[in-house]
């Protein structure tokens, strides 16, 4: 009966994930997967020879309750770091399973012992790494920590963790001290590996840790002989790896680059000064007139729009434009927001239907026909130096060709640079106009102006 429940859970997980990969069925997908989880959890209470039920329920209530509360409360803009923290918890749980099993050390064969140690190592790294990722995205930790020889030291820590892992595998009875040092080293490695990684690369790292946690869960599944854990963990491990690759590709950064070099530290200064020309300002009423009498407007939203909570107002503005017969489309760069697809979620929250949202390949050919490209809160993803300046750290990253639109209006709070700290050559182009102000206020003004026309 328990095996049957686990089998059902595994099927539900796979079907759920499959449904989640299309926008039409995605909402049902998570419900299917959730049903699978419920079935598996309830079945587990009937596993024979178990005790500690009281404490178990208490732990579930604390962990689940806290996650429920934070999950319901968190703003959509903060989604990436929440995913990081929940993912880290999964990794930590996998490591904890390994710790209990290693302490008991009644393994049936050597291979289970090896898998337990590997799962513990991966789980611990995913746990502490995800926590650092969370702290960075949450703004608790602003700087990237870089010091000379960092990679060598990381390598030494990692090597030491491996050595203690092997010691654990060799010894017949596990000594508490070896176990403790092993976990301490693994956790330290996770922290040290994540510290130098810049904020812009964090989504790729979170996705990678997601895949790693899946793998750790699968390994501990082997140790416990639990098929549901093996299947679910492995599916997530491979899906997560693929997703990580897709994200890294969208940012045009090989995964090895993300992991082993601090972004911007390598050549960020080179391109700051050569964006010549002047910035030309425009006021809200002129901008509104330009767009109201255009035939096609493409909106390029960025994380800045979400921070200003302007997406609702922008969508209201778009509906007004559409009433005037303007075609409005949203162009989303793969890494708009804080991770691929994040901006789609933020726009969806504002009620923008997903068939008005286009991704990079779909929309780039349309910019030359667009009368106005309205850039709001986006910066690096429309910076033409990614095409032209080989010295720029973002050189080679695919960008939205907003500069090819007949007019470009850039809504921006101030004169600061984007997430990568690079000056944006787009702003200095002849067809570009700057509209300074808070995203929300600007959107409000635009709405009023259009209504008065």
């Amino acid at each position, binding site marked *: 009966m328990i095996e049957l429940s686990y089998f059902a859970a595994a099927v539900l997980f796979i079907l759920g994930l499959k449904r989640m990969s299309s926008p039409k069925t*995605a909402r049902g997908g998570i419900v299917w997967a959730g049903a699978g989880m419920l079935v598996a959890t309830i079945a587990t209470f009937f596993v024979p*020879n178990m005790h500690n039920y009281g*404490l*178990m329920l208490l*732990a*579930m209530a604390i962990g689940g309750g*806290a996650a*429920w509360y934070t999950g319901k409360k968190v703003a959509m803009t903060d989604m990436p770091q929440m995913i990081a923290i929940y993912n880290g918890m999964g990794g930590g749980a996998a490591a904890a399973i390994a710790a209990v099993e290693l302490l008991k050390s009644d393994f049936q064969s050597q291979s289970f012992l090896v898998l337990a140690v590997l799962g513990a190592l991966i789980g611990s790294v995913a746990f502490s790494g995800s926590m650092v990722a969370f702290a960075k995205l949450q703004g608790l930790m602003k700087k990237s920590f870089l010091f000379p020889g960092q990679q060598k030291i990381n390598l030494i820590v990692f090597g030491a963790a491996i050595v203690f892992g092997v010691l654990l595998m060799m010894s017949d009875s596990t000594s508490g001290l070896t176990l403790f040092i092993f976990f301490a080293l693994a956790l330290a490695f996770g922290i040290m590996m994540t510290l130098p990684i810049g904020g812009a690369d964090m989504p790729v790292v979170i996705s990678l840790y997601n895949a790693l946690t899946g793998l750790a869960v699968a390994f501990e599944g082997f140790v416990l002989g639990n098929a549901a854990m093996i299947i679910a963990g492995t*599916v997530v491990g*491979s899906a997560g790896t693929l997703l990580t690759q897709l994200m890294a590709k969208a940012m045009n950064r090989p995964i090895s680059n993300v992991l082993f070099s601090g972004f911007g530290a390598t050549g960020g200064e080179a391109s700051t000064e050569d964006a010549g020309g002047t910035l030309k300002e425009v006021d809200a009423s002129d901008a509104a007139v330009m767009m109201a009498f255009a035939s096609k407007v493409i909106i390029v939203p960025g994380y800045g729009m979400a921070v200003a909570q302007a997406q609702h107002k922008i969508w209201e503005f778009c509906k007004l434009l559409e009433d005037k017969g303007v075609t409005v489309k949203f162009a989303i760069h793969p890494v708009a927001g804080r991770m691929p697809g994040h901006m789609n979620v933020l726009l969806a929250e504002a009620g923008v239907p997903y068939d008005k949202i286009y991704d990079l390949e779909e929309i780039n050919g349309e910019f030359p026909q667009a009368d106005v490209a309205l850039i709001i809160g986006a910066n690096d993803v429309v910076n033409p130096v990614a095409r032209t300046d080989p010295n720029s750290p973002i050189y080679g990253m695919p960008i939205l060709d907003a500069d090819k639109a007949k007019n470009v209006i850039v809504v921006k709070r101030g004169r600061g640079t984007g997430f990568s700290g690079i000056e944006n050559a787009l702003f200095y182009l002849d067809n570009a106009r700057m509209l300074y102000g808070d995203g929300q206020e600007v959107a409000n003004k635009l709405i009023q102006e259009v209504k008065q026309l």
Partner: protein
Amino acid sequence: MIEGFTALYIFMLAAFTGYEVIGRVPVILHTPLMSGSNFVHGIVLVGAMVAMGHADTDLERFIGFLGVMLAAGNAVGGYVVTERMLEMFKSSKETAK
């Protein structure tokens, strides 16, 4: 109990399944899907429960407790967050209603 090569076969087939299922996903769903797969590995809860259920010493119980707590957080948090995101995906027809 799952032994030797059977385990390896399960591992291999599951790996391909994961790869295929995600293979053609549109960019707009990357974040929810990452969150969804994050929820799926919350199945670690099952393992944490078993590990804790077999714990005998106080140390094992303590670590097991931590494990169950973290795993429950993974599962519940992953579900809530994913559902909230997917809740919002609507096409223009649906919004017009």
